[in-house]
């Protein structure tokens, strides 16, 4: 939208409502123009809804041990021979309904993914702000750590942190702590990108007049960073967060698949695939393939959404 377009709207309606402004924004237009993006957003929304509503829409409760029967183990999907209408997508080796397992697993995968993205963003934004604003030795130290970490892929760092944490705290109760260990290792593996982006925008912002004015009237640095600089450097962070959400979900699934993520009593999609992998050779393919397809479709949707957001917010491409 050019400057003239902005004038027209503001002269016609002096104080347009928030809804109106959102509907008229460039972002909404570019969103509605791309069919793929609308589909991806709908898909993502459906996944999130399915995850939130899992306890209500799941046909069985996979955590209700009393409801499990070994007689129901390894039943194929309903359209195959020996399939049963009770279990749409079949059951796993313990007789758990696969569809319900996937819905609950989706919930865990999404919660871990979103929490770790928030944690990584929090670490990265604070370190980036401090590095950019303070400069000097603090900046050099933080950025060197970031450089060293960037030479390694995140999955390796997450594995190392996971191993080290379990070494430090001995054999913790996996059922309680796996979740937190996962989020810690994911957050510590993914903070670098946020820190670098925020630092470079902070370097630009801190020399602008509003920051200098704030400094002159004696506002403490911490308040300047949080109240004045932070809102102006958040834009790119949203893009990184969306793209990293897909990455975090994949990494969590990978760790769980490798046996160092969520335990089989609280399975995420990765854990379900890992369980199913043992039965692939004996012909029970559905135990691994269905959770895998759910994971892949979820990640594809989030990736598409992230790609669009990156292009839409990139002024160079307009």
């Amino acid at each position: 939208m050019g400057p003239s377009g902005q004038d027209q709207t503001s002269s016609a309606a002096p104080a347009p409502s928030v809804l109106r402004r959102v509907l008229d924004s460039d972002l909404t237009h570019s969103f509605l123009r791309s069919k793929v993006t609308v589909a991806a957003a709908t898909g993502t929304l459906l996944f999130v809804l399915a995850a939130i509503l899992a306890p209500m829409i799941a046909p069985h409760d996979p955590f209700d041990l009393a409801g499990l029967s070994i007689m129901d183990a390894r039943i194929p999907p309903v359209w195959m021979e020996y399939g049963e209408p009770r279990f749409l997508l079949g059951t796993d080796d313990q007789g758990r309904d696969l569809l319900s397992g996937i819905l609950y697993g989706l919930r865990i995968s999404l919660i871990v993914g979103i929490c770790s993205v928030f944690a990584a963003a929090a670490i990265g934004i604070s370190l980036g702000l401090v590095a950019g604003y303070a400069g000097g030795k603090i900046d050099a130290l933080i950025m060197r750590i970031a450089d060293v970490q960037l030479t390694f892929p995140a999955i390796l760092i997450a594995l190392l942190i996971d191993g080290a944490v379990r070494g430090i705290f001995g054999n913790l109760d996996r059922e309680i702590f796996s979740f937190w260990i996962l989020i810690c290792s994911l957050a510590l593996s993914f903070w670098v990108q946020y820190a670098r982006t925020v630092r470079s925008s902070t370097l630009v912002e801190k020399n602008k007049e509003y920051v200098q004015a704030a400094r002159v009237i004696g506002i403490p640095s911490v308040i300047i960073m949080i109240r004045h600089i932070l809102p102006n450097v958040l834009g790119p962070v949203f893009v990184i967060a969306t793209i990293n959400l897909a990455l975090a979900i994949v990494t969590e699934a990978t760790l769980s698949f490798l046996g160092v993520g969520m335990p089989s009593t609280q399975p995420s999609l990765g854990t379900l695939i890992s369980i199913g992998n043992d039965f692939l050779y004996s012909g029970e393919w559905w135990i691994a393939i269905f959770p895998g397809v759910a994971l892949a479709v979820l990640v594809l949707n989030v990736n598409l959404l992230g790609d669009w957001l990156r292009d839409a917010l990139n002024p160079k491409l307009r």
Partner: protein
Amino acid sequence: MLGFALRRFVQAVIVMLAVALIAFSMFRFVGDPVNQMVGMETSIEAREALRERLGLNDPLPLQFTRFVTNAAQFDFGTSYQFRQPVADLFAKRIPATLELSFTSALFALLAGIPMGIYAGLNRESWLSKLFLSVSLIGISLPTFFIGILLIFLFSVTLQWLPSFGRGDVVEIGSWWTTGFLTVSGLKALILPSITLGLYQMTLIMRLIRAEMLEVIRTDYIKFARARGLSNRAIYLRHALKNTLIPVITITGLQLGSIIAFATITETVFQWPGMGLLFLQAVQNVDIPVMAAYLILTAFLFVSINFIVDILYFLIDPRLRVKQA
């Protein structure tokens, strides 16, 4: 040139020292090394003697120096779970990982470059669009799930290819084993290398496509066309050369990721390489193996980065002009 190389070298050494410090702190502070090495019935005196012998009572800087000196000589102590020298464990498994990584990198380049050139030159053809959609799906599928799908299709359903292990290997020299020389070894390589290389392949394809699109719009390509050169000569001799600069950088850097992601692929295919060893170490909190893996991969990464930087400098004359 020399100054540039020297600066890069100093940076590389600093990174290695930092990694060594992390590995050392893991070894020294995550759990008690002595408790891990002795049995329950060992007396306190014997424990103290071992502690003294390992030098764990020395000042920390001295311990660190010794750790670095030992690591530089490929001595990483004894594995907690296997009770064998870590160096021997790795030596046995390095050939498997390197052969797998090499084959997947080769696959990624040989498939990715032609697909990228084609998609860049024939933007609107349905085949290019198919390549792009497949690459998007390839990026969204987690590595381990690609492996599972391939196993399901080619090993379980069609029974064409083996799903685990290296097949028959041939010993070359005292410690190198290769699967390149036997039929079963080559067959065993196919699925793991595709799994490992698929992501890199899509990356290279997209990169070459984007670069091609940019390069064919430049003046020197128009000039070459005006000179009446054939399309083939223009694309392959003039355009491709310039698209290769970023490809070398990315491929170089990706070589490191290939080795790291080998951990996942090796687990899926029970491939007896370093990655599988590392994963078992993480599951059993076998710190010396983890520390050694960290240092070894860091060394590989840093060397690759160093070589790529130097290559970049040699290939792109513009960088040299800026330095002068």
